[in-house]
């Protein structure tokens, strides 16, 4: 499967940012498709669209990171409820470690840039 929302990230987000987002949201509690869509948009993936989310959830189900079932409702049609599996929790930990590594790299880069800017500022004055 290709990355469904690859074109929807703003360009400033890590390439596979959606995966840890979804895993984290499901670690916080069971959820439904539309709710997840709203939350990932609020987490910075503004262009997230339902088709991509659906495929991502299906892929994660196949990888046994997520499980789901239909939840009948008294008030409306049945909805699919998604929960995180143990495998998903491990995936979340790995993804977050990877993001932490990226953060370290970015902090190093930004610190060096700040240091350079400060030196340039000092030599001008």
């Amino acid at each position, binding site marked *: 499967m290709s990355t469904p929302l690859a074109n929807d990230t703003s360009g400033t987000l890590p390439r596979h940012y959606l995966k840890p987002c979804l895993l984290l949201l499901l670690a916080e509690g069971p959820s439904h498709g539309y709710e997840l869509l709203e939350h990932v948009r609020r987490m910075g993936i503004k262009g997230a669209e339902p088709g991509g989310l659906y495929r991502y959830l299906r892929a994660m189900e196949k990888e046994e990171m997520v499980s789901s079932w239909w939840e009948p409702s*008294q008030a409306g049609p*049945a909805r699919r409820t998604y929960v995180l599996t143990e495998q998903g929790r491990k995936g979340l930990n790995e993804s977050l470690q990877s993001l932490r590594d990226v953060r370290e790299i970015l902090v190093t880069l930004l610190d060096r840039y700040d240091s350079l800017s400060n030196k340039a500022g000092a030599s001008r004055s």
Partner: protein
Amino acid sequence: MTSSAPKSEQLRVLFWRSEILRVVYWLHGEGLGDIVDLDLIRTYLGVEGRGVDDLGVDLRENLSTYLEMLVADGSLVRDGDWYALSARAMAEGEAELATAFTDLVRPVLNECNDECWCQTSAAEAEACARSRSVPGLDQKARKANA
């Protein structure tokens, strides 16, 4: 998704039937719409922009055929390029999902923790099962089965 599609035509029909209906039910359940067209189905099933699948089968033609099969068996109704769940499919789907749900939450003796009163006898287990079917208590059972 296509790599996991079955190889025989009969199973492929069942596979795509299930995949298509699942998308339509999903959209309906999420309140995202009650009608779909071929392109939307292709997008959701991840076959967007691909003319043929891993087996060399023309997906556009086949998905269209599978949609028509669902129309023919009365699961979908067609209006031009758009398809919707038929009233019958809607009712059957709800019943099917409710049954699946019942199976998921149906408690059995010793299913609860050691503190639960259904541990004491079969009669208590039955009473426990009845109480668990009360809306609101379902969440606990579903969680336990998740």
